[in-house]
């Protein structure tokens, strides 16, 4: 097997002495694999992602991205991140925000920003400022800005979490399409089991207090996984299984 693109070895994280947020995390993500992280809020999903992005240091253990430290992987301009709330420069248009990623990474082999936004259904809004866009559109710009430089590693923290249910459903399908085309190694935090099962190759369930990996469930469903059209019995069964595991974990930690 090839070396994992992201590897956490016996990682623990605490912000206060004695209170482990995460403990004993062993996780390896293969190149091109998409792993979804689910778990109760506050179990440390964001913290885990931030460690993979080099924005937090683990208290114990090690985090490797592309065989290097996360900071070195960032310095190679091989990391893209998108968080729950779109982080755009408010005084720059949608197009300028996406171009900014290329300007900062100095990548010349990136995608064409205006073409990318057109593919994302924002052809009419290239020159709109973030405040003129709906939440769903802002998030599409945010994700475009995260992958325009074609990073090998994509870290998504509840990228659809701030959206209403209907926007969210159509955006999940859209995101599945985008990721199927570009195929970066992806860590995706979500609190929606359906979203995880539609998108992921593996679903990792975290427990809480402290956060550990409770289950690691491979998803073998064929793609594309059209669910809102006509979910297959297989798909529904997988969602049920994952949800069953998640609820057992939540009950065990008293929620």
């Amino acid at each position, binding site marked *: 097997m090839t070396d994992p693109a992201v590897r956490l070895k016996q990682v623990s994280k605490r912000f206060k002495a004695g209170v482990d947020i995460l403990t004993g995390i062993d996780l390896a993500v293969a190149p091109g694999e998409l792993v979804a992280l689910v778990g109760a809020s506050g179990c440390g999903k964001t913290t885990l992602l931030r460690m993979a992005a080099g924005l937090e240091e683990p208290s114990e253990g090690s985090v490797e991205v592309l065989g290097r430290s996360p900071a070195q992987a960032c310095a190679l301009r091989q990391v893209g991140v998108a968080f729950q709330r779109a*982080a755009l420069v408010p005084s720059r248009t949608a197009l300028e925000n996406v171009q900014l990623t290329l300007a900062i990474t100095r990548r010349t082999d990136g995608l064409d920003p205006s073409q990318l936004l057109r593919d994302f259904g924002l052809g009419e809004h290239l020159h709109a400022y973030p405040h003129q866009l709906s939440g769903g559109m802002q998030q599409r710009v945010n994700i475009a800005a*995260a992958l325009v430089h074609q990073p090998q590693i994509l870290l998504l923290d509840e990228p659809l979490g701030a959206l209403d249910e209907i926007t969210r459903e159509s955006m999940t399908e859209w995101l599945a399409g985008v990721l199927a085309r570009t195929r970066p190694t992806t860590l995706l935090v979500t609190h929606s089991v359906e979203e995880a099962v539609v998108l992921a190759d593996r679903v990792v369930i975290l427990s809480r207090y402290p956060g550990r990996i409770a289950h690691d469930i491979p998803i073998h469903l064929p793609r594309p996984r059209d669910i809102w059209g006509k979910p297959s019995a297989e798909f529904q069964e997988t969602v049920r299984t994952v949800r069953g595991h998640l609820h057992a974990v939540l009950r065990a930690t008293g929620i």
Partner: protein
Amino acid sequence: MSDRRAYLLMLVSVAVIWLLAVRWSGLPPLTLPSPVKVGEVLWDERSAMLEGTLSTLFTALLGYALANLIALSLAIGSVYIRWLEAFSTPWVVVLKNIPFVALASLLIITMGSSLLPRLIIVVLVCFHPLLANLNQGLKAADRVLIDRMRTLDGSRWEIFRYVLWPSALPYYLAAHEIAFTTSIVGAIVAEWFLSRQGLGHILVQGMTEYRGDRIYAATLISSVLSFGAYWICRATGRHLTRWQRA
């Protein structure tokens, strides 16, 4: 009512009130000259008035530039040098709260009527809103956006240029609307206290020589300057933040 009409109405009202006051108040022309008389003084003494205006403007602009330099250095420095803000805050707070007249008197007896004390006064009266707003604007920068820039390996300069500065700019522009005008008021007050020149000096002379017409003339000029300063800041500010209204 549109902005422009409201201002026009205000100007007309002032003229009307003035004329009515001259007519009905019973005050002697020495203390309440007619607009015509003030116009005559403005014209007859135009070289003295112009000289005074330029002198005031020079003090105000130089002091204002200094105030900006100090406020920008402190605010931006505080982003990168952790102790700087903690260190400077007590100084800023104390200086801001010393009664201005006391400070001005102190400056006169120590430095006399040179340019320096006047500049100091201008800096002291106008730098605080600049600093406060810059600090606030820099702190309001989107943390998530900064984190995203860091994962792209953005340099400090890039993070400043693309995140911190755009965040601070609207706050900074709003501060100019207040502080630029204040710098002109500060310059006049400083001249009033300690100078042989400028609009402030013309005001003092007008008082000692009972020249109401000169006082009114200088007041008119300084009002126009202050309003002009405000208007320039506002127009520039609105131009630079026009994206907010797009």
